[in-house]
């Protein structure tokens, strides 16, 4: 039996319920008319309890969605614990509950030790404030007192390597310097439990490398690391134990190797409840804000060979991308360029599609419109991929989205072979091959 002192995190019966909008048209839920709904909800619940109306009116049930359902886990001290699962499986939700950003609907969690998350690196940084002011801002956000920061300030500044610029507003820093400063604060937080949510797939190369180093360093110190990644190579190499989440439930838990296998060969073919195949882009965190506001990409839709919108595709099957755009004002440009890049978890652009590559002109006579791109014969290796989108109009890049959405590629049923994607031995592209 485990001594309770060996446990870093114990999760008992955690569930998380979200109310979701049934569709984009159902905007009325967010309007003031929704208040009446929200205010009368407890009363209506009460009448349900007393049997005045039949239990769980269907309308309410539709708008409730369980992102996590009855999750039980124990994470031991000093282990690197992996969480795997498809998009929407509930991985981020679980980490957000652990770092207390959002509250669980049911269940109980006991955490032994200070938690810090790599997502928090550089949070609260304000471009107008100096490096020094930002250190205090970020440090106190992590619950440090002014006195603690006073004591560590010199070390933090030294460690960041930006001491020359420490009294300069960080808007004048290069992105690398900003990242270094963020990590310098993080380095002095001394977390006992480090939470890492797919940071190895986002951000620039500098940031990813720092995150990787931080993770190895923390785990070498014998601290607990909880890691979400789509990179099965990383999970297998770094983690001892893991869990596979599927639609908010535990699908499998055990050693990391077992979980990776399970994920790749048993749960990869399933489609998921909330797989809409549509990504809203109007307000997207991945948008590079430097671009002018001439036009914006509004949504992206991915369709399979049967014209069904989905993010899940079979390697080699045709994939159709539909991208909506809207201009701020009337602009006639007969040769806009739309680009779609497919990027793997190592940050490598595996493939890029553009209407320029096929000499097709997109004429933007209308303020709003849609472009479509069908990709055939793309034999991607099994795994999840980020998609970057960009558009150039009137000879400037008007909009660019990094990691706009993810697509998931699974092997065709016919070629279930035991292999680990993204391991050093395997490639990025699977060829249509025959052997004799």
């Amino acid at each position, binding site marked *: 039996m485990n001594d309770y002192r060996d446990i870093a995190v114990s999760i008992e019966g955690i569930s998380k319920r979200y109310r979701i909008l049934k569709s984009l048209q159902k905007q009325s839920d967010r309007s003031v008319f929704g208040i009446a709904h929200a205010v009368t909800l407890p009363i209506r619940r009460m009448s349900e309890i007393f049997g005045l109306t039949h239990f769980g009116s269907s309308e309410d049930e539709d708008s409730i969605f369980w992102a996590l359902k009855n999750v039980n886990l124990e994470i031991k001290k000093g282990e690197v614990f992996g969480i795997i699962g498809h998009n929407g499986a509930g991985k981020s939700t679980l980490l957000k509950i652990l770092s207390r950003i959002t509250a669980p609907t049911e269940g109980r969690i006991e955490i032994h030790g200070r*938690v810090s998350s790599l997502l928090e690196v550089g949070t609260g940084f304000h471009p107008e404030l100096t490096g020094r002011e930002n250190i205090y801002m970020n440090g106190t956000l992590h619950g440090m007192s002014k006195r603690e920061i006073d004591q560590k300030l010199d070390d933090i500044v030294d460690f960041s390597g930006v001491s020359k610029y420490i009294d300069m*507003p960080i808007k004048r820093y290069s992105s690398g310097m900003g990242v270094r400063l963020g990590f310098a604060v993080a380095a002095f937080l001394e977390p006992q439990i480090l939470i890492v949510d797919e940071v190895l797939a986002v951000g620039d190369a500098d940031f990813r490398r720092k995150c990787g180093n931080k993770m190895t360093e923390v785990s070498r110190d014998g601290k607990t690391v909880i890691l979400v990644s789509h990179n099965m190579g990383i999970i297998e190499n770094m983690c001892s134990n893991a869990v596979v989440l599927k639609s908010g439930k535990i699908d499998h838990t055990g050693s990391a190797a077992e979980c990776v296998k399970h994920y790749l060969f048993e749960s990869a073919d399933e489609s998921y409840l909330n797989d809409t195949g549509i990504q809203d882009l109007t307000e997207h965190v991945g948008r590079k804000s430097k671009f002018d506001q001439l036009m914006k990409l509004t949504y992206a839709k991915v369709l399979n060979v049967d014209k069904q919108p989905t993010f899940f595709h079979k390697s080699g099957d045709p994939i159709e991308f539909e991208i909506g755009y809207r201009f701020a004002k009337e602009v006639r440009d007969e040769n806009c360029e739309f680009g779609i890049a497919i990027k793997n978890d190592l940050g490598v652009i595996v493939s890029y599609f553009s209407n320029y590559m096929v000499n097709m002109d997109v004429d933007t006579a209308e303020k709003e419109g849609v472009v479509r791109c069908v990709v055939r014969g793309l034999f991607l290796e099994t795994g999840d991929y980020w998609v970057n989108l960009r558009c150039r109009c009137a000879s400037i890049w008007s909009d660019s989205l990094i990691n706009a959405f993810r697509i998931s590629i699974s092997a065709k049923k016919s070629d279930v072979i035991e292999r680990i994607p993204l391991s050093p031995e395997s490639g990025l592209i699977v060829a249509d091959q025959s052997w004799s």
Partner: protein
Amino acid sequence: MQNSEEPVTIIDANRRWKRFELSELLRYKDLFRFRVINQYKAQQRQTVLSYLWVFLDPAINILFFTIVFGGLVKVDTNETPYVVFNTASMAGWLFLKNAMNFSVLSLNAEKILLQKIYFPRIMIPIIPVVVYLPNFLIQLILSLVLIAFWGFYPGWELFYVVPQIFVMFLLSAGFGMLISSFVVQFRDLELIWRYFLQFAVYLIPVAYPIESVHEAYQGIYTLNPMVYLIEGFRVAMIGGAYELKFFIYPLVFSLVLLFVGTLIYKSREPLIVDAL
């Protein structure tokens, strides 16, 4: 490492907000301080205009009211010249307006922070009210200088500015606590709020004296706690009879509002991040 104490955190769905974590609030008190200081600095550095704006905002308002209500409409302000009458309450009204506004919209403004890191959420609607205080002080001094320029000098009553501002502070924070969590969830509430703010100035004695309200409606009119707050503020600025009700009624109102608002805020706290 050297720091071996190991805090235990319990997250329990059934005991989410039932207790106020005072010790935790104390641990984060430096965050509150730095958030206030840094937000003020950031706001001032963002634009050169923002410094100027602190002066321009009351100036434009006073000019507008004096031309429209002092000149075109001819509102009767007894012995006090209209411009002095109006200037005397402007700093108070601008504080109320801006503090309330930033507090009510604070959760939207801190969206990114809320989604990335945990800290006691209760401080968010309060921070903007404190951040506006330095601007208020500048505007207060500006008003005093203007009034003196027109030959009016505050007496010992000026001291009453302190209780009036204190209650305005509570009222703004109370509004923020009560409304901000709903504004996050129901987007067009923000629109309604903006309308309310736009018209609120005509529901208080800033453009006209309290006596010009029809006697039959005085009762209803003075139910609005902002009425006595502003009336008391002006008395403090240019003298007159300061009545206890200028302080007591708004104080009671604000305390109740703050209490109810905080309860509602705390009960909706778990919803806030999900609704963003």
